[in-house]
């Protein structure tokens, strides 16, 4: 257990030491999105009755920040360790593959939550927010962060160079996030695209998370949570299997 705790501490210390890059930059990015999109669309779009566009946008941006940073934390830490070779310091000690997985995913969730709280705090003076069901906010933050943290472990282990990781991030994570309803309600889409959105697990994370603020969502939060939970369990099983086999880590 001490090995797990130390690996978790090390992973948190790692991102904290470069906090400008890992926490403050994502918060600034999200706030810029909020200011620009809010300014342009505030008077033209009202996704839910009684909810301004800027208020609608905040939970989407918070969740987007959570998801992207959870992925970035585990994936970048692993690929850096692999490329510089210092991954041996984690592979030589008596740390089980389950402890390894738990430490990387939990550190990803912690960074993601910190970034999400940052975006939320900066957004508070800019719009009027409600917290209709805080339990869902917490549940989707943790589950979404764990899902992307796990995906980051897979990507970090699979990628042999930064270019491959960038491809994973730019051609998979980014489109899935952007097309998940961060900036719009899927009810504003044509029927076919509404249907397509239901195959995107990121949509359920953001929709369920948004329910926690407004008590309104495109899909029931229970359905969203169910979908996200099943996706996480499948992904966790795949990741654990990779780690147990030592895929690309133990020759």
């Amino acid at each position, binding site marked *: 257990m001490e090995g797990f*705790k130390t690996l978790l501490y090390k992973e948190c210390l790692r991102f904290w030491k470069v906090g400008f890059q890992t926490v403050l930059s994502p918060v600034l990015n999200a706030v810029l999105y909020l200011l620009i999109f809010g300014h342009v669309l505030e008077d033209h779009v009202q996704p839910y009755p009684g909810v301004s566009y800027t208020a609608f946008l905040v939970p989407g941006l918070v969740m987007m920040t959570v998801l992207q940073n959870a992925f970035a934390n585990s994936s970048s830490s692993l690929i850096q360790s692999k490329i510089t070779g210092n991954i041996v310091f984690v592979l030589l000690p008596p740390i089980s593959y389950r402890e390894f997985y738990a430490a990387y995913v939990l550190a990803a969730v912690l960074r993601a939550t910190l970034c999400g709280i940052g975006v939320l705090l900066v957004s508070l003076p800019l719009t009027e927010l409600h917290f209709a069901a805080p339990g869902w906010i917490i549940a989707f933050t943790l589950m979404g962060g764990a899902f992307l943290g796990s995906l980051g472990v897979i990507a970090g282990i699979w990628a042999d160079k930064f270019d491959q990781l960038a491809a994973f991030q730019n051609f998979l994570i980014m489109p899935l996030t952007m097309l998940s309803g961060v900036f719009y309600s899927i009810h504003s889409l044509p029927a076919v695209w509404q249907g397509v959105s239901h195959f995107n697990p990121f949509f359920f994370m953001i929709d369920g998370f948004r329910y926690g603020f407004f008590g309104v969502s495109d899909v029931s939060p229970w359905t969203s949570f169910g979908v996200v939970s099943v996706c996480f369990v499948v992904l966790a099983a795949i990741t654990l299997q990779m780690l147990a086999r030592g895929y690309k880590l133990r020759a």
Partner: protein
Amino acid sequence: MIPAIRIAGVTKRFRSLQALAGVDLEVAQGEFFGLLGPNGAGKTTLISSLAGLARPDSGTLEVMGHDVVKDYRAARLALGVVPQELVFDPFFSVREMLKIQSGYFGIRNNDDWIDEILHHLDLTGKAGANMRMLSGGMKRRALVAQALVHRPPVIVLDEPTAGVDVELRQGLWQFIRKLNQDGHTIVLTTHYLEEAETLCGRIAMLKAGRVVALDTTANLLQRFASHTLRVSLAEPITLAGPLAGKLLRAEGNTLEFGFDAFDEVADLLAGVRTCGGKVMDMVLGKPDMEQVFVGIMNQN
């Protein structure tokens, strides 16, 4: 007594390359053991298999009686590995890195032992420095420190002195010798054969994934090496008779002969004169591990 390391029938293949082709080896507790071989002989693969960084296709490996797969926690607790590559984590200082490494092995509040290691490795003044700021030699010593944080009874050093200057190398060996005297088992791989000869009580030589020699250093030197007489001649000569059989090496006008007893030197010089050679310079050499190494590698 349980051997410090027991390796039985270990094979490992990387695609078309048979890295280990059935290695059997035992290292007793308290030994200073050398693992030698040319590049690609399988030394690092064997060490990686012992440390759990590689998974053998067949065979078993044990550290202090603990199977490295089935009982990996106990095996890894008993083993400290200094990797060959000069790797480090650029996010942390030397002390942070050692504290983290201690935690990985389940040890909290390890500061006293960390201070002692830093002192012995002459790194006390660099404890607060980021790993990136250290010279190559210091990084190498920091790697040794990392391998020792959990006081492992068995320490494996994979080419620890590659790229380290003479002074640092001597300091490092002094410390490693002390650890050995304190009861730690040391396994060393190195390309500096004189280091292996000086330090190791027993040596195994690997070639193409097999152990081709395994004996005490003294026995290997006795069996495979001889004293040498190296003579530089004014002109090249053609050797005849028993003299030709004593020749180990010829480079231009320089000839190297092997002999077992010093009274043979006079005969060798007389033979050279008989063949018309005029000796300009000569050097006597003791049996050394290089001769052993070359002899065994050529035999196999």
